[in-house]
């Protein structure tokens, strides 16, 4: 177990280093740089002003020098300053934006996982019933709805027309932040975020449970007179959960994409919004920092998923 962990962590470090080189290289291949993004095409700036900006941001140095300077500082925990207007330290920005994303994704994924598993079990148990058919139709709709469309419709219906939720932000501006206030800003984006994840989870859960319910050992349990509830919950569910665990792990990684749309529409101050703004501004230090942070999170989630396999199914051994 310890050897497995050490191997995976060593591989993770190498992957992070590769990710940093790749991100740095790709960023430099994209047209424009932070100064290009800074210039308003309609506002005149002189060459001297632009050159001074480029020098101040260290963009006039050769690329390898820029990378080594960044990497050296990053190893010491200094991720540099954002090149955007506020010029805030990247580490501070990442810390500030990680929590809202964790809150949004955590709530959305928890909601999606719980709902998906429950509805998936119900769909499998009551296979081909009107409930199962309705869930099938709704899940098709949920999977095929792009996150940005779902988010816009959600704002239009629940914020603009019904006024049941604020249209954006994480807390009401200008008033003390309370848990209740944050929760009321959270429920709509988290619910919308959960839609696609729920539909995926419930489909996996339903399909996996249907397969297990036809297995020999389940038939044996039924033949022994075990109550149907116990058959499903005690004998079948644990085995049926394995693919769902894989899916939830993958969902967390894929959720970053969905979070970007939801955070942009709701102006939710998370990693997605930070990254979108940084890319638009070609804010290299912030993009590097955010990419590495998300990359690290994905690697950790994958590791956690592997560990969870072993916990759920003792037949699996980590080597």
């Amino acid at each position, binding site marked *: 177990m310890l050897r497995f962990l050490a191997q995976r962590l060593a591989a993770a470090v190498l992957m992070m280093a590769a990710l940093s080189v790749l991100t740095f290289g790709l960023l430099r291949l994209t*047209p424009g740089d932070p100064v290009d993004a*800074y*210039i308003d095409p309609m506002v005149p700036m002189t*060459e001297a*002003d632009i050159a001074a900006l480029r020098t101040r941001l260290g963009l006039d140095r050769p690329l390898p020098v820029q990378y080594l300077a960044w990497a050296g500082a990053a190893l010491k925990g200094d991720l540099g300053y954002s090149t955007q207007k506020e010029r805030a330290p990247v580490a501070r920005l990442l810390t500030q934006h990680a929590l809202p994303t964790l809150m949004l994704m955590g709530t959305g994924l928890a909601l999606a996982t719980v709902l998906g598993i429950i509805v998936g079990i119900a769909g499998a148990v009551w296979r081909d019933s009107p409930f199962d058919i309705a869930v099938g139709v709704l899940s098709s709709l949920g999977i095929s709805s792009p996150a940005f469309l779902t988010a816009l419709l959600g704002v239009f219906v629940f914020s603009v027309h019904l006024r049941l939720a604020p*249209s*954006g932000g*994480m807390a009401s501006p*200008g008033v003390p932040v309370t848990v209740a206030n944050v929760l009321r800003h959270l429920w709509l984006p988290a619910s919308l975020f959960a839609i696609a994840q729920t539909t995926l989870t419930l489909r996996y859960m339903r399909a996996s449970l249907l397969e297990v319910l036809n297995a020999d050992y389940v038939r044996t349990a039924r033949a022994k007179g075990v109550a149907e509830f116990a058959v499903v919950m005690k004998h079948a569910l644990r085995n049926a959960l394995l693919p769902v665990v894989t899916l939830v792990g993958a969902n967390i990684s894929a959720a970053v994409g969905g979070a970007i749309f939801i955070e942009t529409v709701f102006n939710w101050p998370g990693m997605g919004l930070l990254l*979108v703004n940084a890319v638009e501004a070609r804010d290299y230090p912030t993009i590097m920092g955010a990419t590495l942070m998300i990359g690290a999170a994905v690697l950790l989630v994958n590791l956690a998923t592997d560990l969870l396999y072993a916990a759920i199914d003792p037949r699996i051994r980590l080597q």
Partner: protein
Amino acid sequence: MMPITRRGLALGAAALAAAPRLAAAQPSRNVMVGGFDVGPGGYQGNFNPLAATAGYTALNFMYEPLVIYTPALDRIEGALANGWEATAEKTKYTFTLADNVHWQDGQKFTSADVAFTLALAQDAKSGSIFASRLAGIAVTAPDAKTVVLTLTKPNASLPDLLSKLMMLPRHQLEPLGRDGLDHNPWWTKSPVGTGPFQFTHYETDQYVSYKAFPGYRLGKPKLDGLINRYFKDSASAVAALKAGEIEFSYVEPDEARGFTGNKDFRIIEGPSWVLNYIGFNWDAGLWTDERVRRAFLYAINRTEIVKTLFRGAADVADSLFIAPNVTPKTLEKYPYDPARARALLAAAGWEKINGRKPLPWLTYYNTPLIANVMAAMQAMLAQVGVAVVPRAVDVATYNGIVYAKKPDPSAYPLIFAGAQNGPDPAIANIWTAENQIPPNGTNVARIHDPALNAALAAAMAEGDDARRLADWRKVAEVANHDVPLAPMWVAKRYGVVTANVKNFVWQPAPSGGPFAQHAELWAFG
């Protein structure tokens, strides 16, 4: 276990419905919430006036310049300076400071603060984007209320430049030093200005809050505070407006139409002061013959595009300039005439110059409206034998292409762009004069028209106001004849404010102003 009853369900539903309404609690009703940094004039997250290329509406809550444009942008008046006197040759400006001006921490505002701000703005180390434009200006402060600026060469546009230079407190900033000042936490923790509102809090990427400054030189503001909420785009701000969460935002033209006839809102319309034009890349070797350039103007039905696509939210532009006082009425209007366009192209030998080969047409405009507008122009140009292929990219990509050290003219033989054009006509020099071709300036179309260069140089060097006005009219005439670029239209821009806000002054000025918005008079009523 508590039984689920119909009554219980009804109560639960009622509580659920009520809770978010209570929770969406707004700040005190005497605090105005707006999206003051939404749209092209905004600059969310910038707190440093020396680094601002836009966002002056919000910056002006806290900071003030020496002089400022009137809301109509037709003249410059005093702000922190009562006024100024300039020598005839415009090489020496004397400013007399206003009485009773205090910084928001109680210190008195003096000429030493002005001298300090100018010195700071002249030093690129401080992160100032004004450095080169203020270079060579000597500043003296003969007494606490007088500031003298001495220039090495005439500059009649100095008041225009100074209208964007916000005064900063010497006693607060001098101890911080100039290196790294642009990312000093002072800007977002404890900034101090002379404006009507004091900074209180910045919630990263969410909002900035301000409270009224009781010691403001023009009297205590009527509002207790302001909140500048941040939005990723105007659509999100419109949702907040309609949901009753904010009182003001910039909106896109099609969004503004959604508020028409709604008594709860007031739509504010104004010129963008941005000339949209088709830029011919003069280095591409395709546009040397002025008949080809003129053919573009005859080929495109600008009136119809403004009427049907902009739905009136733009004015057709016949001149290089927007300001009416520098636009002679005698300019050729180039009405839509595709037959004439075809004849001009044929006479110029367009078939040999380029023929039907598709030409990339670069733009940084990414809105659906402009996509439709460019598609319409593409079809109109195709009818006269010019094949263009619009290519919309983001601003950074656009700048990366047009400001490249070794630009490739084949990558952008044509551009569709906007240029800030006024109120001071001198601003056109930097995007049309040959000596302003990048990297020296923003003449990204790389125009090198000798007649235009001569006219621009004469206007820029003239110190006398009346003669200068005549010179700028001459520039308009030359540009109208030579068509160094094809002016299309000046779009209108819109803001929407709730009807309960009184004395609200806003207009879609380039970069958000600044203009005398008198936020101290804004009130609910």
